[in-house]
């Protein structure tokens, strides 16, 4: 029965190896030459072994009949040849290991285990060499699978981040010329045709088009762009020809920075990774020592103390089983692979995580602190209402825009934007700017005053206070009150949803910090459902506040700070984990933050946390599963229940399952 199962197993391996080899030869599989060679060896060795298995007993008997003892040697040589086909490189590596005094080298341990098994078979005259060959065979299959999976995910992730531009188009003598983006100086003019990637950051000087920013932000909606707009490298130009004046060198451009960041992300190792490498350093020697003890102690005790036969062969066999289990590779590979896949999957969604350690911290986040302006709100001021006006909205707004036309204050800008028409500055005369109060000017001969309460007090004009939250601009025409305009910052469309999503992921507390007035802050917090608000903070106060919060929270609950990254750099650094939002193109944010959200969407915060949780869940599953199975096998091996077959199956099986599980971290689209 056991023979039959083993033979069927070999048959399956032959079919799979042959299929993979055929597929590998088609070229698109991405298999390396070395992998194809190993696959070929696995196929050859298995076919050979199956033939040997099926060879009827009378062949050896016939050899024995010709010459006594010949059958025994013939069997040994036939099997030994197969052993060498599948294991010669391991034996060579083991030999080199001995030369370099690396006794815990896994090739060396595998070699001892298999050579030992053959020696036991010789000594016991059982002629069962299949076991040693099978151990070698499955070990090679495991190594092959691991190499292939790692290579494949490496390629997958670099394809995900396939934003590296290969060239830039420069117009020279009326002809387009492709040059290395590295060779393009700041201030040069480059052309980007439809379908090409924007190679360098710059400003559009000619052309109208839509951009596909999916590779950077994960956002699938195209973004419209026209002359005068800033353009970020890494986007794909979709519809029209664009002429761009570069504002940065290639090395300083967004695309280079992002690639650099993602490629180096997994170098910052997480606690789990450090734990596993330390564990591996102890595990292998410990199991080897245990194997040695198992081989020596029980037989000696039996012989000397109990007066029983020593049965060396049983205990040596069990010790050899230990050596097969001592290889830590399944454990060691699956953890960095999980983090690598998690970081890759996140970057596909427009969430850049700067290191495995940050992914780990992110998953433990319990408190999220927000900056208000630019993070939860758009950071652009808009006219939100016009009240108590004596004339049509349009006309009042027009007057306000005219009066403020010479000012570059954000408020003036938003008035002009809200008016939306060309401003004829020649209509405005006698402009008087009263710092901190407002502006008085003459428009078409009419005296117009636009400003805050203080300006109205100064002019002695009675005004109506406003109940709305925001900046109020009172208007007076010819000394008569003409109503007021409310200007306020607008909430991001998905900010409220984002807060609900955060609560749903188990965030315990949301806190908002702002430099704004208290009533503005309170209103925003209420609207979004934020738990705690600290208002009227100077930038330095924000750092202090975050430090105080860090002190008062429990050790295990991590605190994340989310800011727009432009003026929040010190706070981003101070928090357990700093998340910069809308950072596409902002160098300061990419430098200071640990996690960078490429687009402006606050929903991505909850998503980033869910991605990190999934990744860490996979990491813990793999750790527990791999260590658990190894320990069970060691126990069963010591008791003699598990033989070498089971040991190698457990080893390779755990690795395959752990690697497949690790790759799951890549799929984060629907989180």
């Amino acid at each position, binding site marked *: 029965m056991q023979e039959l199962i083993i033979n069927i197993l070999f048959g399956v391996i032959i079919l799979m190896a042959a299929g993979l080899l055929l597929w590998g030869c088609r070229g698109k599989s991405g298999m390396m030459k070395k992998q194809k060679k190993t696959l070929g060896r696995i196929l050859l060795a298995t076919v050979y072994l199956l033939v040997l298995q099926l060879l009827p007993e009378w062949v050896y008997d016939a050899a024995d009949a010709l010459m006594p003892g010949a059958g025994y040697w013939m069997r040994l040589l036939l099997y030994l040849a197969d052993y060498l086909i599948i294991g010669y490189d391991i034996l060579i590596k083991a030999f080199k290991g001995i030369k370099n005094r690396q006794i815990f080298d896994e090739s060396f341990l595998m070699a001892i285990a298999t050579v030992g098994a053959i020696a036991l078979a010789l000594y016991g005259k059982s002629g069962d060499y299949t076991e040693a060959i099978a151990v070698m065979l499955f070990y090679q299959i495991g190594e092959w699978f*691991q*190499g292939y999976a790692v290579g494949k995910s*490496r390629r997958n992730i670099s394809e995900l981040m396939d934003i590296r531009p290969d060239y830039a188009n420069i117009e020279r003598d009326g002809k387009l010329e492709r040059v290395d983006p590295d060779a393009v100086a700041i201030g040069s003019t480059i052309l980007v045709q439809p379908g090409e990637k924007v190679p360098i950051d710059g400003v559009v000087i000619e052309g109208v088009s839509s951009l596909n920013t999916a590779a950077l932000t994960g956002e699938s909606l195209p973004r419209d762009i026209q002359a005068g707009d800033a353009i970020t490298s890494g986007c794909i130009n979709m519809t029209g020809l664009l002429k761009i004046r570069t504002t940065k060198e290639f090395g300083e451009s967004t695309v280079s920075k992002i690639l650099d960041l993602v490629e*180096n992300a997994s170098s910052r190792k997480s606690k789990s990774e450090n734990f596993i490498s330390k564990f*591996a350093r102890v595990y292998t020697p410990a199991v080897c020592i245990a194997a040695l003890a198992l081989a020596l102690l029980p037989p000696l005790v039996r012989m000397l103390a109990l007066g029983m036969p020593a049965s060396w062969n049983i205990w040596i066999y069990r010790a050899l089983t230990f050596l097969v289990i001592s290889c830590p590779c399944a454990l060691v*590979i699956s953890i960095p*692979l999980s983090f690598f896949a998690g970081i890759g999957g996140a970057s596909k969604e427009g969430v850049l995580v700067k290191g495995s350690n940050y992914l780990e911290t992110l998953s433990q986040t319990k408190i999220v602190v927000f900056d208000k302006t630019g993070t939860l709100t758009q950071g652009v001021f808009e006219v939100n209402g016009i009240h108590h006006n004596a004339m049509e909205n349009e006309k009042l707004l027009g007057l306000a825009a005219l009066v403020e036309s010479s000012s570059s204050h954000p408020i003036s800008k938003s008035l002009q934007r809200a008016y939306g028409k060309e401003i004829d500055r020649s209509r405005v005369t006698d402009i008087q700017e009263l710092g901190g109060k407002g502006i008085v000017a003459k428009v078409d001969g009419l005296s117009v005053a636009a400003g805050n309460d203080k300006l109205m007090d100064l002019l002695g004009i009675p005004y109506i206070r406003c109940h709305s939250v925001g900046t109020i601009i009172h208007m007076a025409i010819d000394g008569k009150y003409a109503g007021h305009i409310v200007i306020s910052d607008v909430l991001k469309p998905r900010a409220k949803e984002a807060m609900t999503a955060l609560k749903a992921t188990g965030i315990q507390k949301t806190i908002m910090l702002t430099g704004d007035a208290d009533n503005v802050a309170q209103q925003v917090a209420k609207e979004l459902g934020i738990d705690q608000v600290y208002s009227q903070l100077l930038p330095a106060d924000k750092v202090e506040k975050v430090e105080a919060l860090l002190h008062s929270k429990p050790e295990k609950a991590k605190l994340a700070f989310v800011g727009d990254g432009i003026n929040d750099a010190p706070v981003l650094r101070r928090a357990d984990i700093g998340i910069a939002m809308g950072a596409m193109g902002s160098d300061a944010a990419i430098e200071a933050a640990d996690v960078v959200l490429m687009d402006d969407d606050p929903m991505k915060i909850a998503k980033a946390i869910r991605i990190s949780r999934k990744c860490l869940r996979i990491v813990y599953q793999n750790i527990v599963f791999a260590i658990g199975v190894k320990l069970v096998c060691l126990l069963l091996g010591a008791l003699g229940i598990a033989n070498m077959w089971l040991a190698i199956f457990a080893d390779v099986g755990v690795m395959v399952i752990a690697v497949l599980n690790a790759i799951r971290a890549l799929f984060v689209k629907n989180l």
Partner: protein
Amino acid sequence: MKKTYAIEVDCANCANKMEAAAQKTPGVKDATVNFMALKMHVDFEEGQDPKSVMQQVRANCKKVEDDCEIYI
């Protein structure tokens, strides 16, 4: 001074061994091996010549894992 080198190695545990070997090399303040990106980041001690230190790092890595390469 920090530098990054491309490496070639087959298994994750071997990468960890290389990391340990590199860290123990004189002149190296700290070293990390990123198995997934196949890169080695080395932080050299003050006044060390990276080229000669890296020769030693490569020799030490070859000792623990014969089948590896560091592109200096």
